[in-house]
């Protein structure tokens, strides 16, 4: 029994390592596939879109079926609010997303709630509501495409996408 237990633990460890690899693979994909990496100068150019994505962080994540911001998310949004206050020429869209574990209709509503949470937070930090719009993609636009928890956690997100007014 003990031997079998060790063997199972070994397998678990391997699974965790594999999941870690999957995360980094997915993360690499994000910058290419999410439309956030393109124009807007390099990350070292203050006030550029790249600056926002790389140095501030354009997205916050949510727990399963939750729409409340967690501490990490509030920290990211605090930085977003400061940056958006400083670079007030940008308007932006907050995209709300869900993972695939939910029905299409419910996830559209869930993504909308997540976008609304971010919107409310940024407004509470003094960002003009007229600069932002929200949209929900439900489970239709995953950034991580594997079929397990490592990807689902990346897909439950709200992304602040800058538009217009860039330097």
């Amino acid at each position, binding site marked *: 029994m003990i031997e079998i237990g060790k063997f199972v633990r070994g397998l678990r460890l391997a699974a965790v390592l594999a999941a870690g690899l999957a995360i980094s693979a997915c993360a690499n994909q994000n910058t290419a596939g999410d439309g956030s990496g393109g124009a807007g100068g390099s990350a070292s150019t203050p006030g550029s879109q790249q600056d926002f994505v790389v140095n501030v962080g354009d997205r916050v994540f949510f727990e399963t079926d939750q729409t409340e911001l967690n501490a990490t998310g509030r920290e990211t949004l605090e930085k977003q609010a400061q940056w958006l206050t400083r670079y007030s020429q940008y308007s932006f869209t907050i995209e709300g997303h869900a993972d695939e574990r939910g029905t*299409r209709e419910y996830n*559209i*509503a869930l993504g909308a709630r997540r976008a609304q949470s971010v919107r409310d937070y940024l407004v509470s930090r003094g960002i003009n509501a007229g600069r932002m719009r929200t949209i929900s993609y439900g489970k*239709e636009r995953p950034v991580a*495409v594997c079929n397990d928890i490592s990807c689902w956690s990346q897909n439950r997100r709200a992304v602040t996408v800058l538009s217009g007014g860039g330097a």
Partner: protein
Amino acid sequence: MARSSEFPHDSLLTRRGVMAGAGAGALLALTPRQAGAVLRLEITSGNVQPMPIALPDFVGGTPGDTEVSRNVTGIISNNLQRSGLFAPINPAAFTEKIVNSDAVPRFADWRVINAQALVTGRITKQGDGRLKAEFRLWDVFAGQQLDGKQYFTTPDNWRRIAHIISDAIYERLTGEKGYFDSRVVFVDETGPKDRRVKRLAIMDQDGAGVRYLTRGDDLVLTPRFNPTTQEITYMSYGQADPRVYLLNIETGQREIVGNFPGMTFAPRFSPDGQRVIMSLQQGPNSNLFVMDLRSKQTTRLTDTPAIDTAPSYSPDGRQICFESDRGGSPQIYVMPATGGAAQRISFGEGSHSTPVWSPRGDYIAFTGQARGQFSIGILKPDGQGERLLTSGFHNEGPTFAPNGRVLMFFRDPGQGPSLYTIDITGRNEQRVQTPALASDPAWSPLLS
């Protein structure tokens, strides 16, 4: 029901009984009908033995009609087999070759191979270019004709003729309306998961005749049939907010439903086709609204700090079932079609989503979610009798066949979604062939 434009010669599609005439008359004289002796398949019970049925190739009225006759027979056989209620007998076992569909068959030859029902028929191209399709349904052991009809239509309607005959056989032998002469609108999916291209598509219920209704430029979701016209409603992402649209599937004409201050989604028609009910996103909340398509007047039906979505009318149009998380998790509620107090009806394990009311009115089908598994299930409108028909990762989005006996849904194990059907008894799960990945099916009413 005005459904003629897809089949412009529908008006030419006529049917009449062929019980009269020398053959049938002689037969009736031969075997007087006896009460209680009629062949009938009882499909409401849990366990159905598929009825052995013989479907010899229909006779070609002229040598040029042989191929279409064989094709029509093949479609009928496929329909009946897929229903799970019939077991078409291998033609290699047949001893009598049907050369004249008017003649009384040699019943002894069909009893030997245990055929309980026998279908004979003939397709004949007419002088005016139309097809004449005739069939007779025989009770082999009673030795009598159960049904006989003939139809006239244009040659391009040969598939529909096969479906209409399939429905006639199904109805005569089960006592229930059929569902074969119907179509399915769905979302065709191509490309990788993070850049999926989705197009609206329509096909016959057996997967034949796929036609694309949108080009894939815009993300499209949840198409639903208008019960009375050649129209669908669906959600689409364009340049502005995602909206509920109407699309005429014949003309391609498209319009936005209503002028709402925000995203609208999860649309469905009322049974009379005059109204569209849907969700409107308002801040963090989704509420139900209905719009009258003629007056364009909109009415709010729910006003809660919750997600209210996936509404579906009862077939009499008096009630609405919908999904709400007002109690903490998504569950099914029923309320009057005019709004007002809503009653929760789902109390089984886990959450219950995407309720859809059967056209028969007896059940509501749903997507269930518990312990990481997604099920297709049914319950009665009063919440009793909940049953899960199939479970796994990941089943979603049931839609009823026109007779309420079969559900279609989609399943995505992770590699992408496909369409399936299952009886409301939980038996006879079948994959529906589609050209590519497919999701969000919606079954049409019977076309005729």
